[in-house]
């Protein structure tokens, strides 16, 4: 059974968002990492880049397959999890903690409010 922490927001594309003030930490969910298998590479934007909600912001690679990552919210990247360069497996091991990908200074907090809550995301997993 996949973990779906109650304090996070989610997209239908299996990204999570943790909101701290005006900062959004972004990663992929436990369900997603489990479906992807062993992650060997994460390609992320540089600090200072601008993300646009629902646009791609990076890729992950597992089983020789590259997949698109989508931004759940818009804003400026203020921090990138550089640890994932050497240790991409952290996305598998701790998707909600050490496996976070980028921190974004949100330009529109309403975008985060509109995302799925944990109950809605769990229902989405079951449906899909």
């Amino acid at each position: 059974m996949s973990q779906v922490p109650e304090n996070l927001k989610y997209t239908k594309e299996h990204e999570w968002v943790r909101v701290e003030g005006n900062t959004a930490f972004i990663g992929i969910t436990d369900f997603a990492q489990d479906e992807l298998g062993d992650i060997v590479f994460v390609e992320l934007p540089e600090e200072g880049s601008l993300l646009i909600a629902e646009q791609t912001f990076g890729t992950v690679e597992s089983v020789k397959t590259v997949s698109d990552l989508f931004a759940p919210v818009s804003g400026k990247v203020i921090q990138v999890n550089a640890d994932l360069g050497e240790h991409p497996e952290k996305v598998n091991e701790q998707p909600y903690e050490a496996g976070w990908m980028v921190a974004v200074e949100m330009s529109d907090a309403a975008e985060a409010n509109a995302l799925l809550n944990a109950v809605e995301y769990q229902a989405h997993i079951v449906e899909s």
Partner: protein
Amino acid sequence: MTGGQDLWPVGTQVQWLDDVDHSQANQDLEQELGEQVGRGDRPPLVRIWRSGGRLGIGLSRRDLAMGAGEHAAAALRHQGCDVVVRQTGGTAVPQGPGVIHLSYLFPRTRSSGTTDGYYRLLTAPLRTWLHNLGVSAVTGPLPGSYCDGSYNLLVRDQKLVGTAQAWRGGLAGVHSTRPGYILAHACMTVDVDLAWATQQMNQFYEQSGQPYRVHLQTSVTLRQVLPNLFADKSPRQCVDWVAEQWLQFFGAWVSTGS
């Protein structure tokens, strides 16, 4: 089903589409065609295509990003090795007039299946095609081979075909509400100087500071497997022959589902 035939989209076309004079553009055509498929501007596609006309290697974006990857690629180019960058995962592969490619470019749907399903969809017809030529091939990993993975096609315990994928419009193997496409790709070494290609790949990894190494004895060409079939043919002529064969074979495979 063995070959995952239920994943074949309705209306799939089989076409030979390439631009061998511009090797990177030839690679980039994958994305352009895939985006057209994802938007519904083009039917689902089985693309048969040849490598560029010059000997070289194909790298993944991961290859370039790790260590001094960009520097190592530039050094190889300076030596005359054609280096192209692809959108699928994995590690370096041989490129050149003796390499042929097969790409499935399918739209993402609500139930797009799994990466394993697409690897099987890719390798099952290739195994049948080889079987029709009297060649027994199996899928499996082969440590030390170029771009190793669970879905290599192996002949006599040597790698003849490598496979990889890219999923656009969301994560692989999960439902996505966004439009996008799935690229499942295979490349076959038909008639390649494997010693030269292996040396280039290993030079790339050595110069970029990565420990990965390819072992020459893990690879084989179709010419080595079927020497009589390609007597007196150049690498390009061998690949052209395979491309013609695949056009017919995959045309029939797609229309009948096997």
